[in-house]
């Protein structure tokens, strides 16, 4: 038999298992996701080429016909696209988590002596990182096409922090959708048909002033609008809220913080319930 060719198997010694912290475990899983990006750089297309294309498309194709308060559409547009990019953090997380759930690797992780939350925390951190890459790419693209940070450092940092906070809420949305859907195609379908209209029905690409009255109200109460208005104000891209703007846009920064917390408070329990359902039978 073939057994003669096989050397004896003795693991020289049983290794010592050391309990690891949730933080360590999450970082190991973040690293896994970064390796995925290294192996498939095209995974970054949604935060690189796609938003750059949006910038170019809107700035140079439609831009001429859109009037904005500051008189410079490209500078006005950039915060809108950053807001959209961060909203799509939900997309990234949903696809990644759904993929893992399909492949059964979540079962492997669940059979290990690690915190059950590590998978979600790791996935969320990786999602935030992913979208942050998009924000950096957008900022660089913006600098090239004429976007500037015109206020102080404090305001600028606060704007980036608001982006991340909103991304945090979107990640819970992503975990919910990723856990609830049965296939990556379903995730794609749901996210495309909901998230695209939602990111457009806002002040992201065109000023809400030019919309019909009820449409304008909806757009201005859209959480993305408060975020984008905050970014524009904090970076000094607009002088202030447009005349006749609804209440949320007149208090954009606190409202944006409120929206992010509220959305996280709504999506987190839904996400955890869906994930628990999906992983226990």
């Amino acid at each position, binding site marked *: *038999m*073939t*057994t003669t060719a*096989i*050397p*004896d*198997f*003795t*693991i*020289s010694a*049983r*290794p*010592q*298992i*050391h*309990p*690891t912290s949730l933080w*360590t*475990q999450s970082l*190991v899983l973040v*690293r*896994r996701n970064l*390796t*995925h990006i290294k*192996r*498939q750089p095209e995974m970054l297309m949604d935060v690189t080429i796609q938003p750059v294309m949006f910038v170019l498309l809107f700035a140079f194709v439609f831009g001429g016909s859109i009037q904005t308060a500051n008189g410079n559409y490209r500078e006005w547009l950039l915060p809108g696209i950053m807001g959209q990019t961060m909203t799509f953090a939900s997309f990234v997380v949903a696809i990644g988590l759904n993929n893992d759930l399909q*492949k*059964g*690797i979540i*079962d*492997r*992780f*669940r*059979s*290990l*002596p*690690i915190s059950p939350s*590590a998978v979600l925390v790791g996935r969320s951190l990786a999602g935030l990182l992913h979208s942050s890459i998009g924000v950096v790419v957008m900022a660089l693209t913006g600098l090239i096409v004429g976007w500037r940070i015109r206020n102080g450092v404090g305001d600028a940092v606060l704007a980036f922090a608001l982006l991340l906070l909103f991304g945090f809420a979107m990640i819970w949305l992503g975990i919910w959708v990723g856990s609830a859907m049965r296939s990556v195609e379903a995730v794609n379908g749901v996210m495309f048909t909901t998230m695209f209209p939602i990111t457009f029905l806002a002040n992201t690409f065109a000023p809400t002033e030019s919309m019909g009255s009820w449409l304008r109200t909806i757009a201005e109460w859209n959480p993305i609008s408060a975020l984008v208005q905050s970014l524009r104000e904090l970076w000094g891209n607009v002088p202030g809220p447009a005349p006749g703007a609804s209440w949320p846009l007149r208090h954009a920064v606190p409202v944006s913080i409120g929206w992010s917390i509220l959305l996280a408070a709504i999506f987190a329990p839904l996400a955890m319930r869906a994930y628990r359902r999906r992983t*226990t*039978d």
Partner: protein
Amino acid sequence: MPTTPAIEAINLVKRFGDKVAVDDVSFVVPQGSVLGLLGPNGAGKTTIVRMMTTLSIPTSGTARVAGHDVIREPDAVRRSMGLTGQAATVDELLTGQENLRMIGRLYGLSSRDMKRIADELLQRFSLTDAADKVVKDYSGGMRRRLDLAVSLVAVPPVLFLDEPTTGLDPRSRLELWDVLRQLVRDGTTLLLTTQYLEEADRLADEIVVIDHGKVIAAGTALQLKDSSGQAALVVTVSHADDLPSAAELLRSHVSDVHVDESARQLTAPATGLSDMTRIASVFEGSTIEIDDLGLKRPSLDDVFLALTGHRAEADDTAAGTATDDSTEVSA
């Protein structure tokens, strides 16, 4: 002093809606031994393994692994066992080496231990050359071996394997059996599920036969075979024309002769070797030429048939998990 059993199933029940997938299953696996859980598609093997490895919560009853209760102390259970599930659970976009290290890091192994063990496992599962290749490019068999290696990263004292050799070619299967025997020799307790009767026969000290979620028999392979009836004497004649006269000749010495024309075989119940030598001399004294004369013990397949009334491999309630029969071309 009696030692704690490595694995205990205590009245395990699992219901999915109205369906009872596992119905009051109990068994004990002593330390250092191998239990084979044998049953057709949909019998409930995977469900039992998932409950014992904390992936699924029993509807009632419980299980203990290395003395720890799966419901009350899941973390202690997870520290004591390794699992290779029925579906591969390796990361396709990482290399073999990276997969092993990721799991090692999650166990909190020191980097020295991790390197040593990763190297040993890669070598043991003939994956050293593929260590730095992305798993996506592995063959089915290589993936299966890596999956096994990954479940051994912490060298757990108890190992659960759900159909470990499904999808392996015959050579890889033999190699794997060999690795498993060596693990057991080094003190690992093994619970493996299988649809291959031969596998249970070769590896398991004790076999538990499951059908429709229930334990329908348990014992050593020999005990199971003995319990399902007699050995048979099988005569194969060289020329089909001789079959009627051979049958007649045999009937004059033993009763209950069965004729299988397509195989040119005669079968009759036998009690032992003396029957065989007696019949051999009968044929020697005749003009009938025979190809083969043998004593056939009942196979586990026969056991299964006797116990359940259906063959192990062809169950009509099959759960739709098609067996992956693709074989790997090994270099």
